Every structure is written in C-alpha cells, then in structure tokens.
C-alpha cells in the first residue's frame, strides 16, 4: 500500500487520513486495517462489492461510528476523539438518507440548516439542485432522483470542505445518474473534496480522481483509475467466440493468460500486435475462422477481478 512517502503523500496525510483502522461487529471484521489518504479538492472513490466495508469506513470518518482501533485525522483534528468536528464540518449523504416524509423540501433544508453555525442559504441550494418546482412538495411525493438531489442539497447545507456520498447513484436511472455525476464534479470545481462509494465500475472510472479498491474490509489497491489499470493490467484482451477450437495450452507470443468466460475465450496479452499476428497465422494454418474476434484494453472490471478473484456483480 502506498504509505506516506515523498512530498505529495505528506501533503495529503495532513488533510484527511486513516491509519490502520479496524472495526468488528461480533465476529465480523467489517473493516480490517484500512489506510487511506484523501486529498483536498479531489474526488475519492471507494470501490467494492456489497459488504466490503465501504460504508463502515465512511461512517467512521463521518463520526457516526467509533473505530475499535487506528487513527483518523482531519488536519490537526483527531476525529476518533472529536467526532463532533466531523459532524460539524463534513457534509454527509447516507446510503439511505430518509427525511420526515411530511416535511416540505424547503422546510427539510431549513431544519438541517438550524443545526449548524455556518450555512448556505436554502434558496441557493434549492436553485442549484433544481428543486425549485418541488420547493413546497412533501418529501413523500418526490421521485427517486429528486430525493437524491435533496439528500445532496442537505449534505451541502453547512458549506462543507469534504462531502461524503454513500452510493449516490444506487437505484437511479441513467439520466439521473449523469445528473449526480455533474453535481459531484461541480463540488470538486468549488474546491471541495468528495468521498464516494460505488459498486459501479464505469462510475468509478469516469468520476474518480483517486480510487481505493476494497474487499473483505481491506484496501486491496489504491491509485488513479488509469494508473491502477496500467499497473495491474498492463496488457490488452483478445476475445473470441468459444466455437474457435483453441486449446488452453496454446503457445502464442506475448500471451499471458487464457480464460473462458461463458461464450467467450479471452486471451490476455502484453503485446497485442504480436499476439494478434500469431493468432491470425494459427487460424490460417488450420483453416479456422476467427469468429467473434474483438480486442479491448483492460478496464477496472479486469483490475477488480484480478485483485479479488470475483466479479463485482456477484
């Protein structure tokens, strides 16, 4: 795990930093020694399947749960000892942010604003999250997307430096997801840090500046999405229909690994051009058509599979 070595890491550890954080529920090690460094003004993603420990990690930073051991620091503040600092300064959207169903949108924002010393005007938040038409609507009459926008608006009510979004796009339609992405990027443009959890690969890849892949309560790897792919999965993939009679132990130049994935045979290679040329030669010699041939570069999905040995959607 990249720890605090070098200038850039030193800077980030001073902002928001977790060291060797543990949390157990009974016999379940929900978070099992997590180190994380979150930089100011960046979008940080926690990627992992359900039960990986993402939400628990977030809730410990937010001051909702106390870690069993380890340290969480925010600037000069020790958040384990002073969870109120986190509650005062951070903006939080929980995985299931429910509000009073019979309170209106503007009343909900006002209610939460009354808990903080420094706040953004309710009108500004309503405009910004396009809730103007729904200003006087009861929370129970909002659509999924509108509820989500209200949850983010409430998370911003104290003008926070760091915003935590737990599965911000879960259960939303593609259009609503894009809207959430836009508002997350806007948060970064305003100089806020965003920490979000997701189990969508495309979301993590498109949105996050920095990623930590989690499973079983541990951080498996951390880095920028592209850098993570390049480091963990430097090659490319050749996909073939499984009708192509290619043996598991076929020898082709540059070929790293051959896997069968359902109706497909996938060849992972370090040198795409060499492997492709050799594959074409192999096919012509046997007079086999290369049905369904496609090439692609590695994605986060491949990285995740490589790191955890299982698919995210399991």
């Amino acid at each position, binding site marked *: 795990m990249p720890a605090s070595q070098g200038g850039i890491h030193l800077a980030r550890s001073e902002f928001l930093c977790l060291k060797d954080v543990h949390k157990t529920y009974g016999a379940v090690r929900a978070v099992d020694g997590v180190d994380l460094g979150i930089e100011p003004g960046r979008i940080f993603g926690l990627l992992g399947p359900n039960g990986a420990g993402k939400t628990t990690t977030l809730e410990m930073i937010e001051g*909702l749960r106390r870690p069993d051991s380890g340290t969480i620091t925010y600037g000069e503040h020790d958040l384990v000892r002073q969870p109120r600092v986190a*509650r005062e300064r951070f903006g939080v959207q929980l995985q299931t942010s*429910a509000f*009073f*169903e019979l309170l209106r949108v503007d*009343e909900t924002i006002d209610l939460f604003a*009354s*808990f903080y010393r420094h706040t953004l005007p309710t009108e500004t938040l309503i405009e910004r999250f396009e809730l103007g038409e729904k200003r006087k609507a*009861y929370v129970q009459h909002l659509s999924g997307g509108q509820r989500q926008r209200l949850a983010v608006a409430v998370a911003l009510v104290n003008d926070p430096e760091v915003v935590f979004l737990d599965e911000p796009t879960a259960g939303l339609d593609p259009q609503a997801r894009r809207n959430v992405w836009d508002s997350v990027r806007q948060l970064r443009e305003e100089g806020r840090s965003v920490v979000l959890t997701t189990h969508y690969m495309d979301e993590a890849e498109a949105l996050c500046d920095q990623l930590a892949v989690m499973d079983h309560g541990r951080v498996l790897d951390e880095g920028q999405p592209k850098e993570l792919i390049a480091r963990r999965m430097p090659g490319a993939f050749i996909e073939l229909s499984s009708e192509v009679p290619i043996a598991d132990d076929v020898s082709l130049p540059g070929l790293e690994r051959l896997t069968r994935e359902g109706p497909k045979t996938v060849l992972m290679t370090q040198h795409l051009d060499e492997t492709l040329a050799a594959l074409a030669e192999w096919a012509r010699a046997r007079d086999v058509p290369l049905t369904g041939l496609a090439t692609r570069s590695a994605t986060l999905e491949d990285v995740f599979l490589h790191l955890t040995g299982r698919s995210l959607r399991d």
Partner: protein
Amino acid sequence: MRQLLTVTEALLRTLVRNRQALFWTFFFPVMLMVVFGFLGNSSFKLNLLVAGPANGPEAKIVQAYEKIPYFKVKRTSRQRALHLVRLGQADAVLLLPPATTPPPWHATLVYNSANMQTAQQAVSAVTSAAAQINLAMTGQHPFLVVKPQAASGSRSATYLDFLLPGVLALMAMQNSLFGVAGSLTRWKEKGVLRRFLATPLRPVQFLGGVVLYQLVFGILSAALIVAIAVVFLHATVVLPLLPLLATVILGMATFLAIGFVIAGFAKTEEASMPIINVVSFPMMFLSGVFFPVTTLPPFLRSIVHFLPLTYLVDGVRGLMSGQYAAWAPAVQTDIFALLVWFVLLAIVSTRSWRWE
C-alpha cells in the same frame, strides 16, 4: 435548546399534515364517549300497559297516566299485556274493571317481579299517580303539594363523567406508546435517525425534541377531547389545571419511557406493534378506564395496583370528578406511583436504547 425546538416544530408540522393519523387519534375516544354516553344517559321510563274495556271512563284514566312523563303507556288486550309483563317486555300492566259499577273502581296492577328495583318503582309510581288522579277526579283540595325543583349547578354522576377521565388517560397511554415506539422504530429502520446523528445535533437534543412534541400533542389532544365532551356531550367536569397537568404530563412521560424501551428492543416498526399491544391491552381493560377497579376480582385487583395506568386513571378521575382536592393525599399517591414508574423506566430506556 433552539435545535431541540426546531425538531419539535418540524414534527408538529408533519403531525398536522398527517390527517389520517389525526382522525384516528380523535375518532376512537370520541366514539367511545358518544356510544357509552348515550347508554348511560338514556332517561328511564316505566313501560306501563293498560288493559280494560275500550271506551268509558277508563279512557280518562289512560289519559291521566299518559300525561305523567315517567310512564310510557300503551293500550293492549288483557291476555297479551300479562304475557308481555311476564316476559319482562313491559314493567307492569294496570287491569281496569268495566266501568258499570259506581266508583271506587278496583284496578289491579300486575308487575314483573324479576327485578325488585323496577318492581318497586312501578308499584309506587302507579299508586302515587292514582292518588293524584283521585284528587283531580273528585275535585278535593290537596292537603300537601310538593313542587320539585332542580338544584342549580348540580352535578350528575353520569357514566360519561366517569368515562371521560379514563379516556384521557387511555389516550395519554396510546399516543405516547404508538408515537414513540412506532415512529422511532420507523425512523431507525428507514435511516432518518442516522441522518440526524451525522449532524452536530446532539442525540439528547433530538430525543428531547421528540419528547416535547409528544407532550405538546398529548396535552392539546386531551384539551380538545375535554372540550368536545363538555360542549357536545354535556359532560360535567372539574378542571384543577395545575394538579391535572402535573398528573397527565407525568403519566405521558411514563408511557413515553415505555415507548423508548420498546423502540430500543424492536428492530422494525412491524416488530414494535405487537409489543405495544401486549403492553397496552391489559391496562386498557384492567386499570379502571371503563369500570372501577373495585369491581375486579381480588386477585386481579392486586395485579392492577402495580400498573401505571391505574394511577393515571385514578388521579385524573379523582381530580376531574372533584372527589380529590388539588394535591390531596390521594393525588400525591398517584403522582408518586407514576414518578416511581417513570424513573425506573427512564433508567431502563437509557440502557436499552439503540440508535440502530
């Protein structure tokens, strides 16, 4: 304190908007009072049958009896009248002789003797009416005339007057139990509580806001029920405000504490409902809401003296009927018993309470 009040205010807003919940909150107590109020207030009349020849002077006698509001008079045949009296469908039958002989006529009053109280009333009412009729018919000057007059400000002890304090205590229990145990488990379940915990709002402030909201709602709804009972159902009550408020608030606090204990155990709203019913049902029927505790068999009475609702009902009823003077020893006992319950439950609830 400001934060606590904003929580209370927000909850009161949601309450006013929850028309259905409001309706049911008031519907049940009002229905109870209307139904039982009519049962208790129906004015008593004797069902008197008259049998005899169809025409002649006896018609005058029937008219004379009909003028007395105490009787519900009906003419019928001798045989049928005796049958109805035997069955208890009528209280008595006056059998008139044929008016051929000169007076005095000898009529026979046959009464149903199954219920001694009504039998005595029937006999004395019919004979005293006969005396009046004699005076009127013979034109004699009366020796003594008694004029009945209602004492001004007299208090009837109708069943409604007995029931109303019981209903108030019952409402205090039900509203507090369902309000706290029901909504807190729902908020726990849906993540409303967690969202509040992620703000600088202190947990005590949030719970304090919930308690204050329950007390405000409880007192306002009790006031409304008293107003309905007095204005529309003509209940007569005494309202010594301070001791009454102290008793009711302490009672609500006790049941709120029970609500917190239940909300601490129950994981979901559905799970909390049967627990609430198990807690509230025995008290609803045993603690003297609908009938005095003294009518219970002794072994039940000894159990009932441990239930908090018993003391709330007793205190509220004693004060509202004027039976207990404000801060009388009996009121103090009730308040003390509720206080003991409240303290015990408050301790348990702080131990058992879970935020998730």
